[in-house]
């Protein structure tokens, strides 16, 4: 009943093996901890492989895997923070260390964005995904991705004082 099973599985395994360094870095950029990042990558791989038969189009495997990986990373983030909602933790952290007039390095500034904004920036500029691919990988539509990207760029500009062009 499912003819393409072995092909999709094979494609996914290749994609995972070839991209493992990138996947690990992306996970690490969320969880900030080596062991946790390894866990996230492993969990994402297990989940993806066990469900690969549900993917209809082999062309979507790449973004589909990103989606699982990012979900795992965020789950980890939430579990780690226990009952403190992320926004609150973030607000606390930002308030204590932020000195008026202090300019942040762009890379550190990205950590202060909301999780969805971080994801858009990382996928666009560090993983070189197209906006359409980001929409698929985050399960949102293209317009949401665009508005998130522009908002994130504005906020980064506020935090760093740097003008970042946003070639789409």
């Amino acid at each position, binding site marked *: *009943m499912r003819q393409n099973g072995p092909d999709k599985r094979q494609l996914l395994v290749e994609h995972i093996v070839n991209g493992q360094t990138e996947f690990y*870095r992306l996970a*690490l*950029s969320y969880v900030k901890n080596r062991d946790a990042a390894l866990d996230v990558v492993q969990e994402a791989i297990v989940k993806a492989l066990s469900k690969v*038969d*549900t993917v209809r189009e082999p062309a979507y495997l790449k973004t589909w895997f990103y989606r699982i990986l990012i979900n795992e990373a965020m789950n980890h983030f939430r579990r780690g923070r226990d009952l403190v909602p992320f926004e609150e933790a973030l607000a606390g952290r930002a308030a204590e260390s932020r000195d008026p007039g202090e300019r942040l390095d762009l890379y550190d500034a990205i950590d202060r964005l909301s999780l969805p904004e971080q994801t858009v920036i990382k996928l666009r500029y560090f993983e070189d995904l197209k906006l359409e691919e980001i929409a698929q990988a985050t399960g949102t539509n293209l317009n949401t991705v665009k508005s998130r990207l522009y908002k994130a760029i504005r906020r980064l500009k506020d935090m760093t004082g740097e003008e970042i062009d946003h070639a789409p």
Partner: protein
Amino acid sequence: MHPELERARARYRAQETPEELSLAVRAAIREGERLRKRRRVLRRSLATALAGCACFVLLVNGSPTFAQAVYDVPLLGSLARIFTVTEFTVNDDEHVIDVRLPALENTGYTDLEQQINQEISTRVQAVIDEAEQRAQETKEAYVSTGGDPDDYIPVIIDVDYEVKCRTEHYLSFVIQKTETRASAYTEFYTYNIDLETGRELTLRDLLGPNWMETVNAQVEAQIAERSKDPDNVYWTAEEGGFQGISEDQPFYLNQEERPVVVFEKYELGPGSMGSQEFVIQPAQ
């Protein structure tokens, strides 16, 4: 790219990757494969059962001797029957699926059997795939809006069938799919086979060329009759209630070989009315 962004990218890329990464990746791939195979066993049992069924049909088709032999066995040859091809259960964090899948045999019309069995299995598989997909999306939405995955209540899907009529003339059965989340939603598919012609029955075959008028008049009369009970609420035609039956109105045959037309929940009245059935008598 902006130099500042270039620098951030360089810092991102410079994040050290641990030596054991590729080992961890390999281990995870193996574990994922193992889980995938476990899931596939369930699917395969379905495919194998259907393949067995197709074999039987082909055998009848291909060998006159075999076909003759089957028809000579009185019970097997004379009475078409529905049997359960496969039963399976999937039970995980996202969903609980119970399936009892029927197939058809001994109607004497192998092409028809094949076609219907194929249709049943494709339809049921599509229903399950769709439900799985939806279950996964629902769970993702639940979790991403802050729900604890451990508290998630899995979607329950039930696929079952019921034989409504089995005589020497007709065979009629209904396949039902019920998906339960906050409330249950049922979909059904009906199959009616004329064993004399080997075709799927239509209401026209049973009620003649004026079948639409016949059915409409009787459904309206029965709605009026049932509405006398204040517990029964039907929408009027203006409110979106009964506006005449459709060309492909689902129906089945009851044990008396009378057609019973079926309307889905919400089609004629509020959800509390459930799905509605009307037995139709032949026009005088």
